[in-house]
């Protein structure tokens, strides 16, 4: 069993190989055609092969040469920040649960949720401050984006009547 001497290259290589393999697997049914008349699958197949090859070189190099480790830290900020954006999406257009489509919660609530939740990611999180910031920014976005730029958002939750 070869030793992984360059974890960062190794992981990057695996990632590229994975993307390449996925491209080929997903695009397996796409018609290839011939070089003179390329089908939808021709170019993606080339890219997939290239990615696998490049990834493989990275992996092989990682087994031969020493190199940097991956600086791992808590995935907490990542999950919170990405999660807050997804929550924002849910508030604007709630997903269909058990066949029931929930009404939109409107921009105000969506903004406050995003600001509050994403603030938790900071090491200096203060909940009062985050709440105030959420309310202020929600008001600003309604004024700027809906009234100012005329974007299509409902302001308040749909069940409170037309926003």
């Amino acid at each position, binding site marked *: 069993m070869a030793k992984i001497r360059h974890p*960062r290259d190794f*992981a*990057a290589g695996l990632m*590229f190989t994975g*993307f390449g393999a996925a*491209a080929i697997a997903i*695009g397996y049914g*796409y*018609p290839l055609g011939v*070089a*003179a*008349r*390329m*089908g*939808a699958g021709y*170019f*993606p197949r080339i*890219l*997939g092969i*290239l*990615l696998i090859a*490049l*990834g493989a*070189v*990275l992996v092989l*190099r990682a087994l031969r040469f020493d190199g*940097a480790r*991956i*600086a791992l*830290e808590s995935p907490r*900020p*990542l999950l919170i*920040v*990405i999660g*807050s*954006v*997804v929550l*924002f*999406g*849910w508030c*604007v*257009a709630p997903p269909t649960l058990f066949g029931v489509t929930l009404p939109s919660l409107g921009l105000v609530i969506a*903004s406050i949720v*995003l*600001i509050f939740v994403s*603030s938790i*990611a*900071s090491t*200096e*999180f203060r909940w009062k*401050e*985050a709440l105030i910031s959420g309310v202020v*920014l929600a008001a600003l*976005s309604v004024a700027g*984006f809906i009234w100012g*730029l*005329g*974007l*299509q*958002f409902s302001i308040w939750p749909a069940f409170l009547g037309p926003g």
Partner: protein
Amino acid sequence: MDLVLNLSLGFGVAVSPINLLYALIGCLLGTLIGVLPGIGPVATIAMLLPITYGVPTVSALIMLAGIYYGAQYGGSTTSILVNLPGEASSAVTCLDGHQMALKGRAGAALCIAALGSFFAGCVGTLLLAAFALPMTELALKFGPAEYFSLMVLGMIGAVVLAHGSLLRAIAMIVLGLLFGIVGTDVNSGMARFSFGIPELTDGIGTAQIAVGVFGFAEILMSLSQKENRDILQQKLTSLMPNREEIRRSIPAVLRGTTIGSLLGILPGGGALLASFAAYGLEKKVSKRPQEFGKGAVEGVAGPESANNAAAQTSFIPLLTLGIPPNAVMALMVGAMTIHNIQPGPQVMTSNPGLFWGLIVSMWIGNLMLVVLNLPLIGMWVKLLTVPYRLLYPAILLFCAIGVYSLSNSVVDVYITAAFGFMGYVFAKLECEPAPLLLGFVLGPLLEENLRRAMLLSRGDPTVFFTRPLSLVMLLLAGFLLLLIVAPQFRRTREAAFVESEG
């Protein structure tokens, strides 16, 4: 006097009150976001891209150009005052700019940066206008084989001239190409890699990918670093540089403008390379190299002029050939396609008002920066004192709303979030996202031209080597690749980036 005629046409378009207003708003917003520590021009433009979609085409492009210059200038302001570069290209400005600030010469540094940039911008605009016609004529001779080879050359150049691992950068380009062809295949009408999501059959938007991979990822990376800002405490008293500083700056500005204009045209060049190269040059020709890193005014004047000149001339390949030379220009392509303009030689002939209007508006954007930013510096400094824990949620919200508003679809928000996640992984694995964006924009173009070239040659791949122009470009690309493998050049390339950092 075609040039004068064309430029006056451009002035006619750009100097309408409404377009001036858009240029002004663009500069203001660009500086506003660009001044925030840790956010470079690419992220700034990505974040502001959505708000330009509702604006008429010409005005939107004018506004975007304003955003670009604003973002770049904002980055320099932060570097000088806070010693926290927004992005790599202002890292160089940090070295001497912040030292000048510590010596109480912050105002002078900011002023020289602004005036040097303005001068470089003027030269860059003239060059752009002068090169537009001949380059466009050349481009009209290009067939699909030439375009394919040109794009290959562009991508290789972008990789070679950027810093970081070559292998990774090439892989990132290929991955970008793959993301670029997601959506409906133009030839067969088949949906590719859309996972049954209707929104994906139209392809991934440039804004989603850029906001995710640059915007979100930059926020995430700054969150994992401890906040460490030493904001200038003393008041900015005078903006005027003294006579000695002016005398030393002028040659530096001239040299920076020259080197920046040249490097901006090169694929992958752009602002970053230009400022590094200009700094290196200043240090070499200076009679007082020991002063560099301790507040040498040339170390501010040279790179700042260079990156603005390069910012300007990198529009040349984009507007005449339709090939973006770097990530910022790739974003511009995204913005143009949203407005149904395919950048390339035909823009100038079919839409001269737009073309020359854009060029003139770049100059206006530069002028506005000088007029606007110098007096407003106090305000930007205030903005820098807002703690990051309050800033980043606001930026996130702004991005989320912007991305949603593109087509009033939350799926776009989720796609952006997914790219944010990916961007974080890329950053952790030291895979630069700029080549990804370049590949992403070039993906559909590359496939289309490959198909056409092969169709015309009846499946004979030697067509790329038998057409002289195409052969020349492929040879150049091969030469660039050889260069990087050659140990001599490799050392110089690494040294060029390390020296300025150390």
